[in-house]
């Protein structure tokens, strides 16, 4: 069990986390070890370190959070901002139009109607360059491609191995949990084994619970290659997959024809009037800066 960190050790770790942005748990263990300056290669227990950092970072609306790679099980960490108010968004590195494009793409990926949490590159370019009534002017296709690359480089988005699909990056999954919970709760899938958000995996058509590919492999290893739903114990054929390039399993609300809620969310993404403002629109606006006076 590691001793409590002194001030310099904690400052070192926090600076490293800020510079690294998103890092694996293994890298985190190694840097904690270097900070304590002992001979062991990696620190075994990191939870006390995480708790100590979070107890002092909370006052500044910062928190160390993690998510699991849904295919490999590798855990990734980031020191994230938990309060998207005017103070933190006032110094965004993005311009007003770039923020609108990022919001459009993140929401577009997350609410993709087949529940695949991905957009083809073609669709991503199309919806991002479409005129948005709240922002004057649009981006060209070339500018949008360049922006998508920038968003991927910054961790908000990612492309799959073939570069054919745009998906959520680690940073979005770790940092935007509150945003998704408040505005898009109906689109959230949790893995029924590890209870973390699932944007790719397999759906049990009996109870509509999802399982990550990594968690499904763990289940199959423990039961001689058979995959049973952790929630209802029914056998899950691996046909009902969702993720980039898969057939997909639509979310429940998308299956209801003319669903008011689904349509109003989709309309808000398109920038159309929705009458009563949905919580989704309010949280989208919190993420956006439309005052370009901070642009340098």
């Amino acid at each position: 069990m590691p001793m409590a960190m002194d001030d310099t050790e904690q400052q070192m770790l926090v600076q490293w986390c800020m510079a690294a942005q998103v890092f694996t748990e293994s890298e985190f263990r190694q840097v904690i070890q270097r900070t304590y300056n002992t001979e062991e290669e990696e620190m075994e227990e990191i939870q006390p370190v995480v708790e100590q950092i979070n107890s002092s970072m909370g006052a500044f609306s910062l928190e160390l959070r993690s998510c699991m790679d849904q295919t490999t099980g590798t855990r990734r960490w980031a020191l994230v901002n938990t309060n998207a108010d005017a103070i933190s968004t006032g110094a965004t590195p993005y311009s007003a139009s770039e923020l609108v494009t990022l919001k459009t793409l993140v929401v577009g990926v997350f609410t993709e109607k087949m529940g695949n949490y991905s957009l083809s590159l073609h669709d991503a370019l199309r919806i991002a360059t479409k005129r948005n009534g709240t922002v004057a002017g649009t981006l060209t296709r070339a500018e949008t491609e360049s922006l998508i690359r920038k968003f991927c480089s910054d961790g908000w988005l990612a492309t799959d191995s073939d570069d054919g699909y745009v998906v959520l990056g680690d940073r979005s999954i770790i940092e935007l949990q509150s945003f998704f919970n408040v505005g898009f709760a109906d689109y959230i899938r949790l893995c029924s084994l590890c209870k973390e958000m699932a944007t790719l995996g397999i759906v049990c058509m009996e109870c509509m619970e999802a399982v990550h590919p990594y968690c499904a492999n763990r289940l199959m290893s423990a039961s001689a290659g058979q995959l049973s739903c952790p929630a209802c114990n029914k056998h899950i054929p691996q046909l009902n997959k969702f993720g980039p390039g898969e057939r997909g399993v639509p979310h429940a609300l998308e299956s209801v024809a003319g669903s008011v809620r689904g349509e109003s969310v989709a309309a808000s993404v398109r920038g159309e009037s929705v009458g009563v403002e949905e919580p989704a629109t309010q949280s989208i606006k919190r993420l956006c800066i439309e005052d370009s006076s901070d642009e340098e």
Partner: protein
Amino acid sequence: MEEESQASERTATDLVRYALACHASGKPIRRENLKTHVLGNTPTRNTRPLLDRANTLLTQNFGLKMVALPSHEKILTNKAPTATAATKWVLQSTLPDAARQRLELAQTEDQQAILGFATTVLSLVFVSNMSVPVDQLVLYVRKLGPPQCIATAADTRETAEYASDAQMESAAREAIGYLLRQGYLDKVKLGASGGGEHGAETQATQASQLPTDGGDRHDEGMMYTWGPKARIEFQPLDMARFIATATGQECSDEFVKTIGRAYGSNITASQ
């Protein structure tokens, strides 16, 4: 009184949050933006204590402090910036050197490329008595080859290998423009640079020997020198060590003296 004290602490905490957000974005912390986003209607007399408290919180929790960026006028007249006159700040680490070295702060490939490029360009300015004519620096950067990640124009990024003369010139100017915007370089009029008078005359002689075709007219008589960010982030002795490493030489006292002569001033261990 207690409410006032709690309100001040909240404002100082918000100041820290804003400073960290600017730091993460690679932007300086500007006084006018502090007023807009954090201080609001806070009386001016309270600003100094709030900044001090924010600096204390930054140092205690993050090992960072706000350092005033010298204005362009202060660079040219070599005056130290005063705390009350500062309009821009950046965050600087307060960790001891040994701790920072143990950390091996992670950088992306792009960040490493930009840092390497900026350091090399600044070293060229450093050994030229701290000022280089515009066209001369463009030539240097063309030979150096700017990192691809700086190029924003698709044609300069995608076709570097087969770039025409005009594209290479454009890429070099774009890269120098990037360093200007980041605050690593400053463009000054001949004779107003940080270098000595003798240095400026030497540069003027060199400038007159440069080819004049293709250069912008408004660049005539203009020089590049170190910008405010370079003066905060790079120290003369560190620059001497970098030059020694880059040229494969030992950073002996004699070497430092030689570099100091090119810099235009003695370089001491305390710098």
